[in-house]
């Protein structure tokens, strides 16, 4: 389901191309670099997130995506390591894999996972690992699908995105970084989705770990 390569771009500090189902994103991380005066934080690393859509120019939709990604990435970065510095995280959506005018969950989830790999590739300090999944609940409210296909998403009763902070070799869930739901659902659905999503998030994180493992092997192949 999920496939990714790191180090796909030459001129940035870290990069990654990630494909998840019909969604493909490319992410680049540049940093730590000198920030603009208005971005500078006296004791911490500043973060700039840019999302470019797969077609057309960025609009408010991409602004919201940037805001959501920033919410996930900010608490997991070891920001105290880089005072008065800036990290630029840039995303280019290559394939949306969802009706863009109505949804943005699949892009968001792919961006979050790509960000994890690109940050690792850039060598910027992370306090925890994190991973994200999209979930959809079918019209009858019974079936929960992880990483729904475009059609499942359109037909779903509610859509959910979950990003979790993971510890102990991605085995233990430490905190909810982002959990956002839209549609028609109840408290019971929220809890079920959360429970179900935790499992798939751990699985996704292990996939991502494999990518990192492969990267490390390749990087040190000459040793």
């Amino acid at each position: 389901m999920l496939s990714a390569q790191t180090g796909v771009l030459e001129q940035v500090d870290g990069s990654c191309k990630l494909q998840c189902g019909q969604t493909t994103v490319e992410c680049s991380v540049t940093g730590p670099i000198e920030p603009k005066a208005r971005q500078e934080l006296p004791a911490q690393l500043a973060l700039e997130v840019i999302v470019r859509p797969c077609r057309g120019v960025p609009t408010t939709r991409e602004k919201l995506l940037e805001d959501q990604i920033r919410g996930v990435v900010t608490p997991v970065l070891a920001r105290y390591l880089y005072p008065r510095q800036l990290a630029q995280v840039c995303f280019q959506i290559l394939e949306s894999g969802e009706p863009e005018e109505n949804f943005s969950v699949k892009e968001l989830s792919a961006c979050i996972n790509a960000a994890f790999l690109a940050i690792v590739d850039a060598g910027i300090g992370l306090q925890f690992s994190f991973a994200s999944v999209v979930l959809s609940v079918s019209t009858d409210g019974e079936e929960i699908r992880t990483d729904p296909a475009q059609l499942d998403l359109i037909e779903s009763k509610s859509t959910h995105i979950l990003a979790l902070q993971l510890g102990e070799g991605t085995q233990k869930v430490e905190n909810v970084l982002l959990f956002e739901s839209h549609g028609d659902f109840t408290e019971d659905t929220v809890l079920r989705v959360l429970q179900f999503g935790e499992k798939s998030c751990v699985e996704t994180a292990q996939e991502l770990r494999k990518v990192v493992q492969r990267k490390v092997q390749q990087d040190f192949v000459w040793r």
Partner: protein
Amino acid sequence: MLNTTDRRRILGPANAKPLVFDRSSVPVEENQESAKKSSVSTGNDAIYIENGIVVNCNGSSYLEVRSRTNDKNCTLLLTSIYGPRPSRGAFNAKATLSVQFKEVTLEKIAAGQIKEICTFLTNVFNAVVNLERYPKSGIDVFLSLIHSSSGQQDFELESIITACVNGITLAFVDAGIEILDTVSAGMYKRNVTAFMKNGTEVVGFWKDDDEQSSSENILEIVEKCKEHYLTNRKTMIEFMVRNKNASD
């Protein structure tokens, strides 16, 4: 084409057309009647004042001007003042004053007219605020017109300008920024005059194209405006005194 569309706002479908209301079925006499009423009502309106509604600025005022004769004629204006705050760039011995005007709900005043209003008000208050006291600073006035007279629109712009002058003065008082006198404006037909020092000094004069008062002597117009000014100023001062007593 792509560069001209606003990407920072959600604009909706490009092929949408504005609603067009049919006015042909409406009796026209009714409108003229209310126009007459509003011309009579000049200088005869009830003013409700409140201070400090906006908390994250330095001073603010809220004005509700309602005509006594026609309850539907009503202007709601919120003024907030930011400053004196440090201004960037070259050294300036005096504070720089700017006035921004915005319609919060309906947008019916043309952009050019808004600019004219802002320039007029900036000129008036440049003469009134003690700018020398605040070197290296900027004082920014934001006017938010929430609603303006629902009746016939003949005197609308003029009543808005009058409310603006009064509102800005009250906001300056709330902000504790030094002004030379409680400036207030009075209006007569399509003319607005801003006075200070008990009506002995004129600080601003606004005149629109208008057949009704074109035959009249300009000094007479100013006199008429002064009557309105005196009542407005009285209301404002009464409010300030009451406010002061309440807080003591």
